[in-house]
């Protein structure tokens, strides 16, 4: 099977995955007890009205009175055309709420991903070249630390030390400042801690993967040959080890890093009060705004589906040894 056919098939599979996930979320939503309906009924009963009639009116208003398949098709069609529903608590379309929140999330995730990737690869390579030295053990410990520390708690502790006690950074995130002057020094200061917290949880995986992958090549015969020919250590590092290491790494990064970043950023935003996607989703959860909860859950889901697609296609493109017969 050719590469082109593989890519086409892989894209089709991503479509299937997305469709299955949407179906599953639809079924889950349909089966779940509707908190809002209960509230409407309770309100009607409390004010002496007819709970039954109120429930019917509610269902009609929300378009819940049609047959199941009709609602399902509506649901799919709306999502596909960008109509992600109406957020009751924010009185705006869900897609608009998400688009307003997104820049705040990107503001600290992008620097965190860049920094943790570059540093992670550098430290991983260093560890591989100096295996079982003190520095390698220190790096390993940092990796364990990064994987293990609950980032929401880490954020709280850092806030306690650097904002409350030392006063180096503001305790409260100033959204207005971030919106008007995104590239100012003051904004960088208030984003420093979130970037650091997110970076520590993301760097661990990169570091360990780089070390493991690079170790495979450090002892490879072609590296020995290069060394015997008198190639400089720097050139061995950049040309003979880093290059083959980057192939599997680039794909691991997309898939695994995404998962870490998505879930970590959710809690980081809550701790630091950044009005990004995570914060939006939490508000929706607390106010039981199901349409918004669904929307903010589907964003990471779609990101993950596309990330996985890019990962597989990237692997097939970059590594000629990959046999895409059965995939």
């Amino acid at each position: 099977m050719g590469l082109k056919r593989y890519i086409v098939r892989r894209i089709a599979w991503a479509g299937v995955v997305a469709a299955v996930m949407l179906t599953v979320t639809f079924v889950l939503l349909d089966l779940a007890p509707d908190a809002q309906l209960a509230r409407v009924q309770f309100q009607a009963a409390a004010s002496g009205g007819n709970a039954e009639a109120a429930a019917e009116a509610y269902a009609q208003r929300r378009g819940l009175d049609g047959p199941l398949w009709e609602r399902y098709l509506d649901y799919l069609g709306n999502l596909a055309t960008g109509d992600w529903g109406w957020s009751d608590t924010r009185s705006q379309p869900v897609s608009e709420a998400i688009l307003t929140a997104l820049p705040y999330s990107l503001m600290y995730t992008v620097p965190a991903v860049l920094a943790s990737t570059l540093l992670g690869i550098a430290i991983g390579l260093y560890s591989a070249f100096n295996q079982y030295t003190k520095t390698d053990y220190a790096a390993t410990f940092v990796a364990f630390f990064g994987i293990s520390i609950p980032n929401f708690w880490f954020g709280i502790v850092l806030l306690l030390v650097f904002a409350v006690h030392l006063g180096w950074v503001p305790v409260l995130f100033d959204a207005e400042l971030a919106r008007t002057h995104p590239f100012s020094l003051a904004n960088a200061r208030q984003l420093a801690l979130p970037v650091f917290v997110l970076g520590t949880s993301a760097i661990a995986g990169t570091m360990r993967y780089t070390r493991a992958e690079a170790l495979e090549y450090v002892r490879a015969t072609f590296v020995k040959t290069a060394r015997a020919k008198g190639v400089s250590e720097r050139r061995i590092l950049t040309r003979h080890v880093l290059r083959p290491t980057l192939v599997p790494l680039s794909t691991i990064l997309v898939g695994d890093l995404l998962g870490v970043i998505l879930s970590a950023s959710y809690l980081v935003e809550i701790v630091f009060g950044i009005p990004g996607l995570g914060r939006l989703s939490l508000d929706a959860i607390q106010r039981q705004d199901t349409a918004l909860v669904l929307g903010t859950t589907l964003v990471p889901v779609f990101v993950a589906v596309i990330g996985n697609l890019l990962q597989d296609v990237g692997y097939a493109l970059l590594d000629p040894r990959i046999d895409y017969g059965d995939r």
Partner: protein
Amino acid sequence: MVGEDDADGDGEARFGTDGGEGERARFEDVDWDAIDAQRTRLAPTRLAALLAGIGYALALAHDFLVAGDDPTVEVALDLPGGAAASTYALDVTAVDWLFVATLLVGGFALVPLATNRRLRAYYWRRFRRHTPAVLSAWYLLAIFLLGTVGTLLIEQPDLHLAAAYQPPVFASVDASIPTECVGPVVDGRCQGTWAYPLGTTAEGKGLLALAMFGMRVSMQVGLIATLLSVAIATLVGTTAAYAGGWVDEVLMRYVDIQQTFPTFFLFLFLAYLYGGSLFVLIVIFGVTGWGGIARIVRSEALQRREELFVEAARASGASTLSVVRRHVVPNVSNSIVTAATLHIPFLILSEAALSFIGLGDVTLPSWGQTIAAGRGDLATAWWISTVPGLFLFATILAFNFLGDALRDALDPRQEV
């Protein structure tokens, strides 16, 4: 951990070893009478497992049919030390029942290892080299005992506003912060007391007691949900490996899809829709988080089924089911144990995160919930968020160290 064949330690007995004066038994002669005898005789482990299972079922039936909503056990106690006689009531919840079942299954899974001294020594030698992991194992044992046995002995902390904001022992805080300082006030600073070794929350709950109940919640979530996941993953993984063809394709494609859904958001979404109790949370974790382990089991099982001992078992007439049960699963268990150990901290962290944002069980004092409760008082009472967070961090770190060392000890082929 080890093939059940070796478990009894008398594996040789099945070959003709009567060695009488008469004809000498050759090595390859199989003494079928011995094997038949072994089959009918109930091994002590089996018997114990059977008895434990029956006891468990009876106790469970008693709790649900007889005790109903009343506390399961009520014992009148005369406490030594002159305290008034008090009733000791123990209400066993559904999660507790699952937890007991998990511990029973885990305990009996360890029997083959415990009875085989040589194997135990071998793994211990390999494991001992990792000092952090050995320390982690002791720490986790302490946490486990405090959480399970310790919490039975203490009362769940309740509202006690007069004792709010007490600092931990050896620490002090400005006397204006606690409502009323339980300990001595020195130079206008309230000192911590041994009455509340780790301080108290804004509601005057002792943090030590809260942390101990948090240990129980974390252990229950981590262990029960992981066992559920392992059970499903083993079933799916071995089925996929052995059935092959379209069954394999469908199962693994399903795992693909499940793995693509970001796990944390899946937990979050489900907890939002159906959550509220620890039981539901554990079921959500257990039923949706097994994809990674299933992939490991499948790939390992695919390798094992090509091994000679499997071929030998099949050649001597063993059915597929018994080959899988007696030869494949025990030999895959090394990878399962490693994967499970590394799965536990992820679940504990997920539970803490969900509790932190208020989606956990609000009736149970979990670590994440206490961390969230202390967020508002960071400037004045730093210990409320810090103490449970330290326990959470240390527990996750310990499980990660343990899992890493177990991988080295049990699973030398996997190098990461």
